[in-house]
């Protein structure tokens, strides 16, 4: 088979449906990455428009452009859109598009999950837009503090849009994060050990892990606040044993890591683009990886610095002030590694490099004002002024938007296969750079003069008029610059002439393919021996196209790839991907019905949607797997690999591990919230306690013990060729017992609307009940699979997955039941 024949054959196997219809059924990461990016930039545009409205309003004193209530909606939506609908999805889009190409494989780990994540994002984002069109957009500020956002002070539907819409969008972030984590750990070209991974993959891995542990506290907070608003459970009401500070803890437990979730991918772009622009390898690869890891961890120990003015004891403040100053060290290390790279190399001032310089200048200033506000007494002065707004834009715009523009210009030839033809981009950069600094330097200044943030207007006597006008003029220059960049990108995509492959002479694998990228990425997979494969083997693209790598011969209609061991990069499994399907969009639509029902308080459609999701999920998982054993598969270079259905650690197991990591973080945050209310909230002890019962507790614990033991037995039985049905039935019985114990707990909790204690217990009980139901569903699924012949002693991959969830169920249910019953039993 020659290169062209191979290309045709692979394209037939991998291509999405042609045209418009293909958007709804594609599961291809290249398509979905582009869709993510296009949607994210659409939201960037909307967010930018809102920013223009803000600056138009603030340009003059006593401005009558927007009243206070509309102004509240505008800045809330601006912040919300930029953070949740632009920044995070841009990272996801870039990672989804690039990672398999950089890692030398053909797609992400779970193609249908990518699509599901995208559609959840698109639907959730549309919900937010709809609210804006009808003038009922969220208006409590992007961090939605109660009691302002509680039912008493914000009775309308506005806040519900935020709580429900953002949670919906966050499902997509969690989906993408699981996807990215598993893909980076397992889906790489053979030979790519951890130290040979492109640096962008390290950043993406760390960011994805941060999403998995950073987003759950916010999801939990949103659920609790929505439950408070809808059903009157008083989690955040001080009179009834709640505490509005609990929201602040949960929000910033997410919110500070969020800043790094935004910055790290941008840093990944910088570390990828900068060395190419400077024609030298990146300085200090290992140091950069360590610094990024340190940054990620430290960022979880900073959240209280957003709460310096809430009356927390001094020692508490000092912990977080100290930790806040500490993050400057790894950040500084990264900056020095980049400066060193520039020093060592010969920087060429291409357009991406200009944006990188814009980043350096802006971000360093933002970092310095950041250290200023980490100092508690300074923060007491600057808190809630325009100084903070200016600081956060130096960090976010400097640390995210400039690098992303650099990345867009750097990878544009890859997206389109064309080259730029005119200096529009350079000119636009100049406008953006000047406009940005004029706008936000002025805001620092006016903030120090006392202008509070989020005020819809001010008086001439305040003495802020001239500075605000300067800032607004700057922002319009900035807006024109950004519009020119978008126009430049459009012109480029539509009209520019075809460019040559790898125009930047980069070393990473995404350039070892034809551009625009084919649906299958690589006609055969490379064997990686260096961090910059194209530098040592410039002809790699041709060799791969000729089929000289792994999996070079298309087989059946299989979308094939292989996975590797995490650390060493030795091939370990053969994978057949699912093909195009509309299941993801359907499932996210049904998920959307669930959220819409909650929003509109159509509670009778909620169970319908839940059952719908369960049925679709069943179908989803049912469609993979085989009913006959398969020999090991030759993948080229004399290597034979087992299909993933015949291993103990299939991709689904890895996905479950990381999904459960996120889930455990949510559960941990719930326990933290319980402990926090118990010790700190004023309205305790509660009027009535949960009536403990030894028998209910014992029943639950027996169930929790039975499940995992029987499941282990079932796994073993299956492995030895016996029938596991009896043990699976026992596992089922265990999960049912747990469900009964949790349901009993919910029934016996005192009225949850009367005190936060009962409310929290009720939520804990429902968490346990939900997971028990999930466990029951999974075991039933496995029983059905066994009966239909999808398992054998060799095809055993589904057992460990179910086992993982059953084990998780038993750990959380024991904790839940003990937390409920034990205090009363001890007297």
């Amino acid at each position, binding site marked *: 088979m020659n290169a062209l024949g191979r290309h045709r054959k692979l394209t037939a196997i991998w291509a999405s449906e042609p045209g418009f219809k293909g958007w709804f059924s594609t599961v291809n990461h290249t398509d979905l990455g582009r869709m993510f990016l296009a949607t994210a930039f659409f939201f960037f545009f909307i967010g930018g428009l809102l920013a223009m409205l803000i600056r138009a309003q603030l340009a003059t004193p006593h401005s009558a452009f927007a009243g206070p209530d509309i102004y509240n909606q505008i800045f809330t939506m601006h912040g919300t859109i930029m953070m949740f609908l632009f920044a995070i999805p841009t990272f996801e889009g870039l990672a989804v598009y690039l990672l398999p190409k950089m890692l030398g494989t053909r797609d992400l780990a779970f193609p249908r999950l990518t699509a599901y994540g995208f559609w959840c994002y698109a639907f959730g984002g549309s919900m937010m837009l709809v609210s804006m069109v009808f003038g009922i957009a969220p208006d409590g500020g992007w961090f939605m503090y109660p009691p302002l956002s509680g039912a008493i002070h914000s009775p309308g539907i506005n806040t519900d849009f935020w709580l429900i819409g953002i949670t919906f969008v966050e499902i997509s972030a969690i989906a993408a994060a699981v996807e990215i984590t598993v893909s980076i*750990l397992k889906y790489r070209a053979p030979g790519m*050990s*951890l*130290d040979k991974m492109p640096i962008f993959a390290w950043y993406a891995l760390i960011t994805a892990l941060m999403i998995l542990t950073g987003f759950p506290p916010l999801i939990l907070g949103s659920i609790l606040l929505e439950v408070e608003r809808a059903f009157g459970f008083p989690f955040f009401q001080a009179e009834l044993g709640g505490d509005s500070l609990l929201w602040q803890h949960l929000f910033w437990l997410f919110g500070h890591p969020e800043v790094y979730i935004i910055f790290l991918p941008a840093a990944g772009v910088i570390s990828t683009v900068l060395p190419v622009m400077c024609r030298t390898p990146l300085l200090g690869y*290992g*140091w950069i*990886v*360590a610094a990024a*890891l*340190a940054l990620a*961890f*430290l960022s*979880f*120990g900073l959240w*209280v610095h957003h709460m310096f003015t809430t009356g927390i*004891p*001094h*020692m*508490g403040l*000092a*912990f977080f002030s*100290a*930790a806040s100053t*500490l993050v400057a060290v*790894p950040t500084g290390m990264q900056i020095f590694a980049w400066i060193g790279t520039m020093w060592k190399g010969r920087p060429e001032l291409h357009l991406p490099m200009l944006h990188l310089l814009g980043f350096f200048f802006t971000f360093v200033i933002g970092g310095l004002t950041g250290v200023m506000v980490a100092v508690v007494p300074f923060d007491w002065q600057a808190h809630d002024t325009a100084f903070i707004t200016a600081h956060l834009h130096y960090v976010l715009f400097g640390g995210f938007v400039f690098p992303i523009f650099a990345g867009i210009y750097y990878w544009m030839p890859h997206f389109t296969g064309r080259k730029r033809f005119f200096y529009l981009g350079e000119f636009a950069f100049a406008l953006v750079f000047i406009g940005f600094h004029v706008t936000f330097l002025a805001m620092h200044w006016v903030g120090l003069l006392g202008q509070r943030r989020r005020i819809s207007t001010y008086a001439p006597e305040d003495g802020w008029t001239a500075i605000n006008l300067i800032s607004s003029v700057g922002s319009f220059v900035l807006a024109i610059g950004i519009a020119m960049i978008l126009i430049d990108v459009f012109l480029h995509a539509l009209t520019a002439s075809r460019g040559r492959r790898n125009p930047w002479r980069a070393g990473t694998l995404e350039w070892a393919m034809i551009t625009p990228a084919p649906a299958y990425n690589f006609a055969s997979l490379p064997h990686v021996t260096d961090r910059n494969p194209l530098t040592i083997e410039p002809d790699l693209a041709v060799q791969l196209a000729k089929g000289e790598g792994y999996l070079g011969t298309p087989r059946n209609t299989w979308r094939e790839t292989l996975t590797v061991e*995490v*650390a*060493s990069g030795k091939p370990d499994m053969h994978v057949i991907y699912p093909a195009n399907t509309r299941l993801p969009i359907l499932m996210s639509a049904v998920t959307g019905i669930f959220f819409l029902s909650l929003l509109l308080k159509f509670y009778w459609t909620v169970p319908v949607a839940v059952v719908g999701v369960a049925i679709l999920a069943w179908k989803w998982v049912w469609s993979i797997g085989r009913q006959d054993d398969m020999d090991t598969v030759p993948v080229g270079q004399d290597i034979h690999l087992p299909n993933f259905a015949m291993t103990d650690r299939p991709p689904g197991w890895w996905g479950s591990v990381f999904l459960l990591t996120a889930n455990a973080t949510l559960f941990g945050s719930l326990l933290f919230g319980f*402990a*926090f209310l118990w*010790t*700190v909230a004023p309205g305790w002890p509660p009027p009535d306690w949960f009536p403990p019962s030894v028998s209910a507790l014992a029943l639950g614990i027996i169930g929790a013990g039975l499940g995992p033991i029987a499941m282990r037995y079932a796994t073993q039985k299956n492995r030895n060729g016996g029938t596991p049905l009896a043990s699976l039935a026992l596992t089922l019985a265990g999960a049912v017992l747990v469900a009964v114990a949790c349901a009993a707990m919910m029934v016996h909790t005192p009225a949850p609307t009367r005190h936060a204690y009962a409310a929290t217990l009720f939520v804990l009980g429902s968490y346990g009940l939900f997971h028990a139901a999930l466990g029951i569903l999974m075991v039933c699924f496995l029983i059905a699979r066994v009966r239909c012949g999808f398992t054998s002693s060799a095809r055993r991959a589904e057992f460990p997955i179910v086992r993982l969830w059953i084990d998780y169920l038993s750990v959380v249910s024991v904790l839940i039941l003990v937390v409920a019953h034990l205090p009363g039993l001890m007297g």
Partner: protein
Amino acid sequence: MRDIIRILIAPLVWLATFSAIYGLHGLLCGHGINGTAFGLPIERVLLGAAFLFAILLQTALLFALYHPSLAASSEFSRFVSRATGWVGLVATLWSLSPVVLTTYCV
């Protein structure tokens, strides 16, 4: 996966001890325990002991990461895991130093 754990363990332990000591501080201040030990208020002694424990834990981890039989086998993982090991220790010393430096519960 083992290498990933070696790389993550020290900062993870820092995060756990940092949160635990912050929680302990909240608990002690919320419930107002009285008494003295070794001539110091009991709160200070408990917090100090927790701080010491956290430092010892990090030191032990660092030892393990340098110990030939426990260290990672690839040179890269060895380097990164030791670097994050140091991060854990330094972060513990620095971010929890208020335990011995500032007042509590004010």
